[in-house]
């Protein structure tokens, strides 16, 4: 077997580790992998161009930026903070745990497009988490502030990933079904999606605990 195409993976790992521009790393890896697999350079460039073109739908989401930017111009982030500041007993731990549950439950019933980073995390969730943390711990150091913002994004991801598979009509469930069916194991989407529930519960417990651990740690640093 020709193991040389694996060099493309090595390029990705080393390139990211050395902090080269990720676009350069990715295209370098693609060209190297294709050529090492015995394709000629023109064919690799064609494959790259075709795949980039076929995946344009991924970058369509940026058309939301004018909406978010416009509302931020009129104080959306400040409004999100004000809601938390006026909410008695709100802590970052409680707020992000509620958001985690909300994201898991809505994704589980098929509403995975509620939430997301440009629409929800940047304008709403992150400023609210920051305001809640400041309410308990006073103003945050730059390092702590970054941790709170990053945890907000992380919570959106964990909630989405470990909620969406409970919904039976989702791409990943259909993929699992398709693969098993091609090997002669017919499964229904529902048979698969119920088995996403134990992991979803573990994810809620583990990530919820980590959110609270971060909240407590912020307190210690401030004290």
């Amino acid at each position, binding site marked *: *077997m020709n193991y040389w195409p694996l060099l493309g993976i090595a390029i990705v790992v080393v390139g990211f580790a050395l902090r080269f521009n990720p676009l350069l790393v*990715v295209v370098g890896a693609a060209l190297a992998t*294709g050529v090492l697999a015995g394709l000629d350079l023109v064919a690799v460039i064609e494959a790259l161009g075709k795949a*980039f073109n076929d995946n344009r739908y991924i970058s369509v989401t940026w058309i939301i930026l004018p909406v978010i930017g416009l509302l931020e111009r009129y104080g959306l982030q400040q409004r999100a903070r004000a809601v938390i500041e006026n909410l008695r007993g709100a802590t970052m731990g409680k707020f992000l745990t509620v958001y985690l549950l909300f994201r898991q439950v809505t994704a589980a019933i098929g509403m995975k497009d509620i939430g997301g980073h440009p629409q929800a995390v940047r304008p709403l969730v992150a400023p609210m988490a920051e305001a809640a943390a400041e309410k308990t711990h006073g103003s945050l150091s730059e390092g702590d502030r970054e941790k709170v913002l990053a945890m907000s994004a992380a919570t959106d991801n964990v909630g989405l990933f470990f909620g969406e598979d409970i919904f039976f009509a989702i791409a990943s469930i259909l993929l699992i079904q398709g693969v098993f069916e091609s090997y002669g194991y017919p499964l229904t989407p529902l048979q698969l999606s119920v088995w996403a529930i134990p992991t979803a519960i573990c994810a809620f417990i583990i990530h919820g605990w980590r959110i609270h651990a971060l909240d407590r740690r912020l307190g210690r640093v401030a004290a």
Partner: protein
Amino acid sequence: MITYEWLYVLTGLFFVVWAVLSLRDGKRGNAAFWGLLAASFLIGSHVSDFVNGLLVLAMVGIAGLGLLKRSDPPTTSGEERQVFSARLGNRLFLPALIVPVTAVAGTLLYNYTPLGETGLFAERRETLILFGIGVLVAIVVAMVWLKPHLLAPAEEGRRLLDSIGWAGILPQMLAALGAVFALAGVGDIIGGLAGDVIPKGSVFLTVVVFALGMAIFTMIMGNAFAAFPVMAAAIGIPLLVETYGGNPAVIGAVGMLAGFCGTLMTPMAANFNIVPAALLELKDQNGVIRQQVGTAIPLWLCNVAIIYVGAFLLWS
């Protein structure tokens, strides 16, 4: 029938505006980069694969040479925003809800009412098309209500776009890398290697290698979807299901979730891990991943236990 092509033209026009505004702002690198992306959206379907490939190489060249700069179009100050926030109150949230509500409620209506029979949208494309419609409605509503100057939405959008910069097309580029990997047979090589390291006779260790393979291959590809068919074909189906008689539903469903734990730990999953770091303007590009590793590893262990217990101990 409305197809993705309509959406691509719309998106292309947005990027044309951003390219022109960048040029006016004296940022030629940004203008070239967003201009090329606009070209990809507007004419990508009508030119050859090779031309699309050259387009990609040109964009990567611009980004690689560091010609993409942050921009700072005029906007409101922090104090002004406080005043607006107090005056406009919680109504400010309503336009923000237009987009998700249009996408989610529209998808549900389209799929579960006779509306779907009209064939208005291309099959299985309705959510993203409705998202596009939601964006247009939200811009119009915000413009009518808040009455900023006409270029405000474009300039505010450009401020955010340039803070994301090259990371904006990284997810799309990684999807293209996945396609090249598939063409070069990388999945088969990895599957073969994973199949070779399995110790014979141990169900538990085979479960561990399967779940580990899912996580690691997902980290490499940035996507559990690419890893799943490979690992299922190499280990999941021939060994766990056929040799050891495990429950296929558990192996499939939880195997995929073990891959999702890998997604939390890799910069290759750019739209979940790198783009948010840029959107939140974090100094540490890997800041989001750093917060996720502590969740991903224990959760991966839970998945191993769930497969072992659910697919073998409870099944036989």
